[in-house]
């Protein structure tokens, strides 16, 4: 095996406690297979995720960031996920404009019962990230 395929991207996941966090839990307990390279921060709502968190994660060297919340209409606080959606949309486009690969900014709707979907999302995100290089954006020298 060459080095490229051995490289495992580090992902930081911001998961809503009402849905995706439980979804990730379910994926674990039901032994769904997904890459173990995601580190998870539980947030009260996807609407809590300030784009600053995403940029900070990239600054800290994470290869990708996943924000996951409740499906439209299901937000515990009515509108939090809609707000997250707008923010994520502009953040993704804007970061792409300044030169961040779009693959690094990821979002998903995963409910508490969708353990399978969570595993699938992490697998796909990992695959996409493996297609680009490790995050050296903030390194001093290239």
């Amino acid at each position, binding site marked *: 095996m060459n080095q490229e395929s051995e490289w495992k991207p580090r992902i930081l996941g911001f998961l809503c406690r009402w849905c995706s966090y439980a979804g990730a839990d379910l994926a674990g307990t039901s032994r769904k297979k997904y890459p173990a390279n995601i580190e998870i921060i539980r947030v009260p709502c996807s609407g809590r995720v300030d784009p*600053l968190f995403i940029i900070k994660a990239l600054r800290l060297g994470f290869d990708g960031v996943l924000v996951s919340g409740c499906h439209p209409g299901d937000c515990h606080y009515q509108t939090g996920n809609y707000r997250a959606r707008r923010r994520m949309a502009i953040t993704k486009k*804007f970061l792409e404009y300044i030169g961040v690969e779009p693959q690094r900014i990821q979002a998903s709707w995963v409910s508490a019962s969708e353990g399978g979907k969570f595993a699938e999302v992490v697998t796909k995100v990992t695959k996409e990230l493996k297609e680009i290089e490790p995050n050296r954006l903030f390194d001093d020298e290239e």
Partner: protein
Amino acid sequence: MKNSEIEQRLRQEAKALLEQGKVDYIVGYEAGSLKFTTTPLITRNKDDVERLIVSPFIVNNLSVYLAEIKGRVGIAAKGCDSRSIVNLMQDNKIAREDVVIMGIPCPGLIDLKKIELLLGKDRDELDSVTRDNDRAVITIDGKEKDFPMAEVLFDNCLECEFPVPRESDVLLGEPCALVTGEVSKKTGIKELEAMPRRERWNYWKEEFSRCIRCYACRNVCPACFCQRCFVEESEPQWVSPTPKWQDNLMFQVTRNIHVAGRCTDCGECERACPMNIPLRSLAKKMYDIVDELFQYKAGTDKNASPLLTAYEAIEAEDFIR
């Protein structure tokens, strides 16, 4: 309508507002201490209104003072400024009834830096710069030179969408036409987008390694009204106070995301930057993204919800898994 006529009306209005007790303060422009420059005038003295001026150099977005001034304010506002004022209302920073907007139809402001580049002379060396319809007339050593306005206006003025204040209590002149033209190539959004991704990142890396973190861009920005900015938080410390390019870039990128839907492309951030960082190339891109995704134009409707607190049931979702 000539600036001198607008200026006369502005003085009359401002004086009346103070005399009738309708406002506590007048915020406008007066002649600055350097050639051509103007400077904000913030006063509660009715005699001071005689100092108010209107010229092609009234660059400051005066709405930046509104949240800070305690009392009712009569404010001179260009098209872009009036949009910033509307933003402040949308965000409940000021109440409509506490502000009297004296609208100045603005056909664009003259960028002295562009003139300096065109002539290879500093502004101190110019005798006069005036506007004659679509020409800018410059006298230097007694000789006149003229240029098309499109060559000397600020980039953001060339792409201005609302030269006439959308929200005003009194409009001080007739609506004026737009001057359009090519924006500076060096920092054009199109040019940046045409670059390979890595090159684009390196471009910003280079630009932000000059940043000294004076925060002028943030402090001139009426959309940056947080009492405590995230860069000044220490627990957790999001951004290092040390001006490394990484942290400078983080600061500016986050700032632009935070003011999305409030930025009116007034151009103040770029104009204020002493390190000549092309900040408008970030701000305007965000302005365009907001427009493209949500058909939202900042500060055009005081009754609308701020962009990032509103939503439609179905929108901009293609990237979500």
